[in-house]
């Protein structure tokens, strides 16, 4: 028995197998917006937050911060001080593609989650910041949002309960950094998406300088489920310390890549099997368990490891966004790292020195090694650069750029050394 319990009989709730669920009528026929109705009529905001705390829901955007606690940080309403909710749908990390699935197949669950969050924190406006490249799904969601407005599920005096909240959609313009919470707020305000220094935190000064709570799409989509099925159901689904259903975005050299919904705490090996095993019967070489920025694991490190914060930390990595990238035995780890480094170099906003300069330097060095022109000392220099970047920047992108470099070199040092020119003394 794994932490995930009886997962083979698990019934999907975030992405249930219902045809045309994205349509409002279908969604409602399936019991959609009932959670909102109950919450608005029979539950106090404090109870909603309490329920969320008891559910143990942790953010699905990468950092895994307890959501109920985050909501409770919001200062209480004060006349003349607007406060906002922001739903982060800027999903653009390599290997992460689960929010997109929700937007395509279950957008009303996201809207309902936003409205419940608005009610819980007594907010009247929620922004939905969507990655601009998701043009098709933006169109779809705009259409569905309009239906929800028509049905009085959003907007003024929702369902006649006296509670009003608006949802505003905002398109990003193609920068990964806009997914960083404070950068997203700058972008939303129409400014250049430079992350802000913290403190002040969003709950103190967020959008337009007013208190703001920001959550990932999947995080908010969990809220209606917790309201209808109960905090206990959620808390008992999957790993105890990191519970709930979760969307695993599985990609790489496997037979059936895609988004899989299962409880947290799944054995990595089980997930590999579910996804059809390695392509061509090859052996697994490495796994990136939570999106490009989390440390890579060698195949021999995943034995018995489950997909939850505790187990992955012990194994030497992180849950991140649960975007799992499986790499087979033929993978060139240098080329892999070169591609990852290129991404962070390309996406650094350039605001702070170590990240702006360090990401490019790293890509240069790794490219040189990949081209067979590298020196052994370049590997140590790369590790030095990781030290010089980590923890010294405005936002976590520099950390996210440094971790893969540090851990890929550390865990696959031989692959790198083989590609370097021999040291002079060895000749």
């Amino acid at each position, binding site marked *: 028995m794994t932490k995930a319990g009886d997962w083979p009989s698990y019934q999907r709730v975030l992405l249930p197998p219902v045809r045309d669920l994205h349509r409002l009528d279908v969604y409602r026929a399936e019991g959609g917006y009932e959670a909102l109705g109950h919450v608005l009529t029979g539950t106090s905001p404090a109870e909603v937050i309490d329920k969320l705390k008891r559910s143990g829901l942790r953010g699905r955007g990468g950092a895994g911060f307890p959501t109920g606690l985050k909501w409770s940080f919001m200062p209480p309403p004060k006349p003349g001080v607007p406060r906002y909710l922001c739903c982060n749908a800027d999903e653009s990390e390599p290997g992460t593609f689960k929010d997109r699935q929700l937007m395509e197949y279950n957008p009303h669950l996201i809207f309902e989650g936003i409205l419940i969050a608005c009610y819980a924190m007594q907010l009247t406006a929620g922004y939905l910041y969507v990655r601009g490249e998701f043009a098709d799904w933006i169109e779809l969601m705009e259409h569905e949002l309009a239906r929800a407005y028509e049905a009085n599920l959003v907007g003024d005096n929702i369902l006649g309960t006296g509670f009003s909240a608006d949802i505003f959609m905002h398109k990003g313009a193609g920068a990964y950094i806009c997914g960083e919470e404070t950068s997203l707020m700058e972008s939303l305000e129409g400014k250049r998406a430079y992350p802000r220094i913290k403190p002040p935190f969003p709950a103190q000064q967020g959008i337009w300088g007013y208190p703001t709570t920001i959550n990932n799409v999947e995080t908010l989509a969990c809220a209606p489920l917790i309201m209808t099925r109960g905090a206990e159901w959620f808390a008992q689904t999957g790993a105890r310390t990191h519970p709930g259903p979760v969307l695993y975005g599985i990609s790489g050299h496997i037979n059936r890549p895609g988004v899989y919904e299962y409880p947290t705490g799944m054995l990595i090996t089980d997930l590999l099997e579910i996804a059809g095993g390695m392509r061509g019967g090859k052996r697994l070489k490495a796994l990136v368990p939570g999106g490009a920025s989390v440390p890579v694991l060698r195949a021999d490190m995943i034995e018995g490891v489950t997909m939850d914060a505790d187990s992955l930390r012990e194994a030497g990595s992180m849950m991140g966004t649960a975007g799992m990238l499986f790499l087979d035995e033929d993978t060139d780890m240098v080329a892999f790292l070169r591609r990852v480094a290129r991404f962070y170099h390309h996406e650094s*906003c350039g605001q702070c020195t170590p990240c702006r300069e360090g990401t490019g330097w790293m890509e240069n060095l790794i490219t040189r090694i990949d081209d067979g022109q590298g020196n052994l000392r370049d590997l140590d220099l790369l590790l030095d650069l990781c030290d010089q970047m980590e923890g010294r920047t405005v936002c976590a992108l520099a950390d996210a750029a440094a971790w893969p470099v540090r851990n890929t070199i550390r865990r696959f040092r031989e692959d790198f050394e083989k590609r370097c020119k021999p040291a002079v003394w060895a000749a």
Partner: protein
Amino acid sequence: MPQVTIDGRVLEFEGQPRLLQFCLDHGIELPHFCYHPAMSVPANCRQCLVDIGAPMRDRATGEVRTDGEGNPVIRYFPKLQTSCSHVIADGQVIHTARTSEKVERAQQDTMEFLLINHPLDCPICDQAGHCPLQIQAYKYGPEGSRFEFRKVHKPKRVRLGPRVVLDAERCINCTRCVRFTDEISRSHQLTIIERGVKNYPITPPGVEFDEPYSMNVIDVCPVGALTSVDFRFQARIWEMTRTPSIATTHAKGSNCFLWVRDNLVLRITPRPNPEVNEYWLADEDRLCYRQFNEDRPAGPQVRNAAGTLEAVSWEQAISTAASVLEKAGAGAAFVGSARATVEDNWLLIQLAEQTGGQVVGFMEHIEAGHGDGWLRTDERAPNSEGCRRLGMTPVDGTMLRARLEDGTITALYVLEDDVIGLLSAADLQEVSVIVHHYHTTNRTLEVAAAALPAAMSAETIGTYVNLDGYAQRVRPAKVIQGASRTLMMQMGLSRADRHGTPFDRWYNETHYINCKPSWELLPAVAEALGAKVPAGGPRRIMEQISQRCDAFRGVSYKAMGLEGMPLPASIQLEAA
């Protein structure tokens, strides 16, 4: 009072100061680039990192926990913190690079990053010699670089606007220039474009960086990325001598530095003064510097029998002026000027009293609609308020013309100004005109009987009062032919090392202008008349003004110092 310990030194503080500013205020140097005291704190250069610890407090009681020996237990932040953004709190313990290897290393690391894509072209860079990047790289940087790749190339020689050029490769992306246009001048004419290491500041499409304060970004830029179209490649910084002065093209009295080499003013930059202009200077106040070098007169002149102006000795010119005044007696009219100092205008009043003539007012220079409520004013001269406080009023052209016509005025004495424009040459056919002039372009010369070249603000000593009633001094920045001991003494004092830099050949007479300060000329004219007007240099003159003129009570050169002083407030009320 709350305390912090910085490198083992215990310092008290009040309020909620930011650590970097607090350190700078206490003489503790910390390397930094993006921080500017007048602007928001983005903490983006990451150069000012320090190690900060806070006393641990008991959760229940809030008491500071102590170790066995009663010392507070300090818990350090897991990451180094940017001192520019850190607000200090009681009991915190701070380590700079002086006491922490970790911090020293971090500062070196950041510096190494800053330099990898920098062109390192200091030998041809205007900023070299006073460049925060250059200076701090020597002090805090690593010995070499481990970067072995082609540097990122970015646009060079980009004209952002009529007065500012960008070299994007030198830029370290501190965003000071952008913040200046967003937060200080609010023109919003600059923004950063591109992403990551390709970033650089530029104007939005179709926008020119032409705001009237554009050149301030050159000063705030911590590298040589932004340079002045006018000044670039004109001089190295160490070749010039810097003299504190006051800007003269507006009545705001913005504080500035005059940069002089070989007695030519080469540029003007702002001098911080929190009471007047903070850190800023309008572009016009900078670009007017050529007036100190060009079209300057070659010495005194007197109109001869043939009706042309002829060069004469100072004695001859002064005696001509004296005889004109003697002849005119009560028919002599005196015109002061908002361009002249308080001292010179006051001496003019004294001369008028001595000769029985009359001060008809002072020339003001209003350009309606020019002012912006900040450092640019409608008044385009530095001292109209000084004239007012001496009891003068602006000359009334109509009235003056009428009196010229009816013959009550037979001589006109013009102090450091040009009355053509207010009057026409025809109005002055019948009167003898004496003028103290700055430039050969002064149109009053056409009708002058005697022309006495006067020292300009860059060459003299004196006081201006700005439109807020703030009295400030000018000092000689360049030597003139008529330099006296008083001027030379002040000149020495204004240069920290008495003689400036060895590259400034101030003793070379090539660019000496043959002129004299009005505070020498006016007493000399009085003396030639047998009258007595206070002499003895502007310091002594200001002493007398402060004794005899209520509006200037308490004003002295010592009290004004480098930063100036407000005039007595009660007088302001009376004047209003």
